[in-house]
């Protein structure tokens, strides 16, 4: 019986053997095509995102008053576009981490070198004049012979301070209130708990802009129009629901046992919250803090509507008025203000990126 099946098996394997190779080759081809399509897509998507920021920075450091020169942009593009393509190609072709890092380093070094060569001579810091000359608008205008009509700008550091104040205060309030509220929602049963949770989400679903007129009236009546605290209050109110919702997810993921254990170990409810529960939702707190801060930093519509005096300007208003006043004259200065406005968000994102990534992991549990 067994002796009969052996020759039978060897004849049958001979034929499909060719088939196996063909199938493997086919699978390889499919995988390769998929990889090519994926990286083509990544290149196509990343270029339009990277280019505007790149231009913004290039213009900020190279444009001159009254000159609308685009040659430098084309030259810088000649560096960036190949660099982005080369980056993705390295990512696609690299085998192993080491190769990837070496490849990226090589691409970066080459790009920096080419950039220094092609764009370097045009770079200067003159567009950042607003950092040390509050009346830069008049200075810039005088360069092309216009003298009158410049907007009275406050010191940019004053606007910067206002923005930090608004974003910072808003963050502090949102983080504190959201943590406490979310903890309560997560731990205690009370009538109306589930409808409260539902309404938290619904609140977030409405476009806040629709409330701008009633908000204006309310602030006017309580006397907080054209004050920073008024804007902070409004922003806090709009940011809270979602922050509470996110934080509740984090608290839900902290086991009861741990808290109960702390209570039997001699902690009061508050001590247990602070020393045992809070450390475990640290990532959630960092995440909502960063998002709230950046929301406040970017805020434009409400500050535009509720703040009037130029001593109350935030960076976004400053940016708006710079654009309004000197755009036609000197778009280098406008870009420089943009870069200055962008840097804090960028630093914050980069510093907190690790925690923000975890939000999607920890927060969804609830």
């Amino acid at each position: 019986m067994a002796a009969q099946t052996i020759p039978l098996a060897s004849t049958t394997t001979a034929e499909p053997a060719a088939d196996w190779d063909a199938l493997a080759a086919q699978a390889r081809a499919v995988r390769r095509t998929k990889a090519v399509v994926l990286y083509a897509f990544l290149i196509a998507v990343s270029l339009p995102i990277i280019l505007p920021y790149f231009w913004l920075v290039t213009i900020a450091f190279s444009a001159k008053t009254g000159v609308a020169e685009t040659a430098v942009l084309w030259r810088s593009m000649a560096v960036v576009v190949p660099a982005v393509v080369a980056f993705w190609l390295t990512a696609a072709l690299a085998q192993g981490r080491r190769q990837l890092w070496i490849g990226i380093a090589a691409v970066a070094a080459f790009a920096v070198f080419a950039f220094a060569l092609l764009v370097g001579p045009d770079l200067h810091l003159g567009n950042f004049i607003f950092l040390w000359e509050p009346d830069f608008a008049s200075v810039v205008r005088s360069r092309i012979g216009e003298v009158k009509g410049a907007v009275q700008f406050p010191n940019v550091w004053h606007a910067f301070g206002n923005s930090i104040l608004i974003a910072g205060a808003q963050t502090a309030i949102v983080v504190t209130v959201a943590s406490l509220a979310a903890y309560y929602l997560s731990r205690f049963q009370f009538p109306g708990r589930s409808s409260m949770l539902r309404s938290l989400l619904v609140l977030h679903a409405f476009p806040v802009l629709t409330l701008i007129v009633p908000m204006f009236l309310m602030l006017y009546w309580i006397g907080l129009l054209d004050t920073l605290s008024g804007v902070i209050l409004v922003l806090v109110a709009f940011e809270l629901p979602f922050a509470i919702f996110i934080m509740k997810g984090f608290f839900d993921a902290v086991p009861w046992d741990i808290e109960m254990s702390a209570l039997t170990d001699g902690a009061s409810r508050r001590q247990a919250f602070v020393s045992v529960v809070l450390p475990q939702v640290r990532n959630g707190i960092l995440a909502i803090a960063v998002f709230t801060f950046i929301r406040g930093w970017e805020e434009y519509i409400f500050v535009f509507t509720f703040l009037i005096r130029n001593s109350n300007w935030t960076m976004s208003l400053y940016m708006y008025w710079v654009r309004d006043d000197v755009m036609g004259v000197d778009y280098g200065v406008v870009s420089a203000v943009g870069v200055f406005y962008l840097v804090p968000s960028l630093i914050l994102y980069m510093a907190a990126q690790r925690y923000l990534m975890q939000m999607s992991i920890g927060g969804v549990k609830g």
Partner: protein
Amino acid sequence: MAKIEFRNVVKRFGAVEVIPDMNLVIEDGEFVALLGPSGCGKSTSLFMLAGIYLPSGGELLFDGHVVNEVEARDRNVGIVFQSYALYPHMSVRDNILFPLRFKKTPRDEALTKVKAVADLVRVAELLDRRPGELSGGQQQRVALARALVKEPQLLLLDEPLSNLDASLRLSMRTEIKSLHEQLGVTTVLVTHDQIEATTMADRIICMRAGRIEQVGTPDDLYLRPSSLFVASFIGSPPINLIAGEAEGGTVTVNGVRFPVDGASGSLTMGLRPELLRFGDTGFAGRIAQIEPMGREILYVVETGMGAVRVLEQGSSAGHSPGEEVKVSFLPENSLVFETERQKLIAGAHVRAPG
């Protein structure tokens, strides 16, 4: 150390009455086990002792003082949770130090205590690690250390061994028992595993659906189970229960006749597998299945009254599947229960037929 007393304790969650009426005394220094199937209210009772749950009614006494409303943190109770509940962001040392923080123990003294208790449960070399870097058994020891470091008057263990693998469970059983012998602290162990309860505890409190079914030594529960529930919960493999009608001094089950002393009416006979013997007399059956269990062999015998389990000493089977056998037992090894009320009839026995 403390003497614990439940007096008519009731616990409700909303409309659900989990513990209807609990009465129990645990002596100072005793090691008792709360044994029962999952969901019967063991943890709930334990959490009331710890002060995590407030009793809905009745009185809970420590050394004669009502403690119903005393906060958890003032009770000086050490508890090991089923999940261990270690604080993940703290090192093992800080975990064990945690209870001392609130006792305002001076730092030097606290560290000495931590060292001592860590030596006791053999985690001294793990003090700088995080709980996440420990194995299940090590986490468990750390949880024990944390519960013991405050020198509690009462030690509560909620299914402490259920997350461990079999061999570790065996060694931790011995270790916890010897810890109790060393420290003499009143200990309440919650478990659904009858072997854990019988091997570790001085007394077992067998619970069913929030009620105490029987309280006694492991021997009491094994030899004189007060009800069918306890009889079937204690012992492994489980007891054989055979129901029949007694008339004129004989229980008849499907034509098989067992002479009976001291009982009549609808009866259920309880025959422990390890107390059954193959022989020339007894009720007849055919071996359906053989399960070697190391030093013992479990036979499943098909009889006219259903399948009967017989456990024999020895490592090689003396019988083969399909073999016709007769099974007998000593009358004093039999238990007789009232089928209706499911209660033991004390002193009643049946004899093997023929």
